[in-house]
């Protein structure tokens, strides 16, 4: 899977991961994939909720040594 943009939100607390995700996603085209790394435990539920609200699709979600890694495809 091609990742078009990657952001590092590790160490950032709520609401910054979604704020960063929004900013990064705004710069992408429909269908492109954003990868986000974050450590705030809230993102496990927050990023899926954020993506659902904005019509983006979570294509991959992993947790590796306390780091949550999401790949999200931009929707409309």
């Amino acid at each position, binding site marked *: 899977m091609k990742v078009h943009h990657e952001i590092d939100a590790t*160490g*950032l*607390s*709520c*609401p*910054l991961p*979604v*704020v960063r*995700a*929004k900013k990064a996603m705004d710069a992408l085209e429909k269908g492109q994939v954003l990868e986000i790394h974050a450590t705030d435990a809230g993102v496990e539920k927050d990023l899926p909720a*954020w993506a659902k*609200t*904005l*019509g983006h699709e979570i294509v991959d979600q992993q947790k590796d040594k306390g780091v949550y890694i999401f790949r999200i495809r931009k929707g*409309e």
Partner: protein
Amino acid sequence: MNQKKSTMVVFSGDLDKAIASYIIATGSASMGNEVTMFFTFWGLTILRKENAVPVQKNRMDKLFAKMLPRGPRKLGISKMNVGGLGAKMMKYTMKKKNIVTLQELIELAQELDIKMVACTMSMDVLGIKKEELIDGIEYAGVASYLAEANEANHNLFV
């Protein structure tokens, strides 16, 4: 996608409640919502500039100006404030845990084009002049708030 709207009345001038308000506001803007925050009564102190601005005031207004906190750095917390000690402890521990500060949240809100509106009637009551509040905000009353709240699907009073 049709744009949704959040409106919020920020009545409280407590640090913790101000942080919660701005986290919800910036979060909502990040969810694609148009956000308006109305600041009234003690909430206006969040928008005060840190330094005193020379403006004409009567005696009572001068007294208020002295007693009310000037901006986000001077606010107390709603519980366990103990004359400002609690607020200091809270800020210390939040910094240690890398939690975003109220000043950063306000800047973030401005970047996200969140509309901040100061209630002119409360400004009158507390003797606060436009020059004493941060730049880039709007001034209005209850009808403006209600008109926006009518269109919103999310509305809070803090």
